[in-house]
């Protein structure tokens, strides 16, 4: 009985949340599947990230710290895929390390798939170090003695016998460290890495705001922010990856959220005016 006496503004303010979920779901599915692709404006952190990778010479060592699980797959997978593609293009040698147990398998399988497609050889041009339970301890160990800290790769081969790692004694032999993560792990790399190492960062969108202090101070040289950063990076590389459709969906979801925030405020205002 009371529901009938409610004004349209009151009903809007007390809308069942399941209707909101349905609207968002339809919006996501529509723009994920729709063939609309908007070009991205390249943000300065992504441009700097790209430029740092471009400086690499063939054979240079790069460390990828991959610490994400399936929960942030939509943001971290496009980043890692585009990054590995770029490293292979530059003929750099790269190693992957994970402090996230799930990421050990995800990053290994993802890298294996991409490298196989391009004929990049495991053990010769890239290696996966597997899972380490404590990143700070691992970094401090690798700074002093990398082969004795890691000991074996993901396939059980002794680090000192892997061709890709010949001559690599510590983290100082690397050029770049790239942290692909949804967690606050980058301060550990900044604090404990050798000073000659360039640090690049691939966070999820929600973690990016915190990293601007490190970008400003130059402790991080470049950053790819979530799926929309991955789209910008893909655009710079001239490839079609997962970043573009995901960023497209995020675009229209942001627009929808803004529209509903304004609508909610308008309904509140009208309701107050009516009450007077």
């Amino acid at each position, binding site marked *: 009985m009371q529901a009938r006496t409610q004004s349209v503004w009151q009903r809007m303010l007390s809308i069942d*949340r399941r209707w909101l979920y349905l609207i968002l779901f339809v919006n*996501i599915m529509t723009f994920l599947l729709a063939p609309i692709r*908007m070009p991205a404006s390249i*943000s300065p952190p992504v441009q700097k990230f790209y430029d740092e990778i471009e400086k690499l010479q063939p054979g240079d060592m790069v460390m990828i710290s991959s610490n994400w699980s399936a929960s942030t797959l939509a943001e971290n997978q496009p980043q890692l895929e585009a990054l590995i593609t770029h490293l292979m293009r530059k003929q750099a040698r790269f190693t992957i390390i994970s402090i996230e147990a799930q990421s050990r398998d995800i990053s290994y399988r993802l890298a294996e798939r991409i490298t196989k497609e391009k004929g990049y050889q495991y053990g010769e041009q890239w290696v996966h170090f597997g899972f380490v339970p404590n990143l700070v301890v691992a970094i401090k160990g690798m700074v002093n003695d990398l082969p004795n800290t890691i000991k074996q790769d993901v396939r059980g081969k002794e680090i000192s016998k892997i061709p890709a790692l010949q001559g690599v004694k510590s983290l100082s032999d690397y050029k770049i460290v790239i942290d692909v993560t949804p967690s606050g792990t980058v301060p550990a790399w900044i604090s404990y890495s050798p000073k000659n190492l360039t640090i690049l960062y691939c966070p999820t969108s929600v973690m990016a705001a915190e990293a*601007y202090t490190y970008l400003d101070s130059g402790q991080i040289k470049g950053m790819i922010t979530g799926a929309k950063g991955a789209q910008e990076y893909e655009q710079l590389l001239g490839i079609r990856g997962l970043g573009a459709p995901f960023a497209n969906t995020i675009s229209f979801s942001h627009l929808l959220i803004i529209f509903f925030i304004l609508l*909610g405020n308008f309904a509140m205002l009208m309701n107050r005016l009516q009450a007077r």
Partner: protein
Amino acid sequence: MHMLTNLMAQQTIWRLPEESRILFATLIVLGAFVLVLGLVPVLQTLPPRGRRAIIVTVTFLAGLFFAAEFFLPVDWTAVFPKDDPKRNFLTPAIQPAQNVLQIIGALALGLGTFGLVRLHLRNAVQRRPQWGYSIVLLVSFVVMAIFSVLNTLAEKGIVARDPLLQRGFSILFDYTLLQLDAAMFSLVAFYIFSAAYRAFRIRSVEASILMFTAMLVMIGVVPLGAYISPALPAIANWVLAYLNAPAQRAIEFGVGIGGLAMAIRLWLSLERGVT
């Protein structure tokens, strides 16, 4: 003491010879095991004050080791002539200490697993409310553990990688665990949408500024923003670099000081709960 410093100078105490490394390591592990087994009943008999004194001493010494290694100056060749002048005499002990930390981390993981299994096993055996979920957890845990261990062994070439193992691991990991994990996290988007609609209200000047800025950044950082106006991404980047960064720095500075104070309290066992 002289022998110990001599061994430290030669670094043989930390770097065992290759041929006898396994024997030494086995002896050390067995010795540590026997020591721990012997220590547990001794510690149990101690009064709480005595136990606390041991914990406080061990915590302090462990913290002191890392602090001393970091703060002591390098080049101790005047005391240890054969030592590397680029490091102090404690540096060679850092790697073994870090290995110990890795082992403690792995033990903590094992302890957590043990606690989880014990709890749900008890739920299932005693038919407590919702014991069916405990059965699901235990079955999932055992099946996933078997396939994961076998898959890891297959990757290392210890067991054969047969199609059943490949298919089973793929179903469990790729098509179940990853999908469930991704689905759980994606629900956050729906909650954010609902919360933004209900809670983001202009009730003050501050709230208006916050909402206007948030909207600018939200639309400026996505491709749609650049499509609407080329100025929007520039404004969003300016907000992130020149308004967000100083605010974040202030917060992180405060968190850093708080962390330092907390570390000192932990090191000196001033935190409550040390018994």
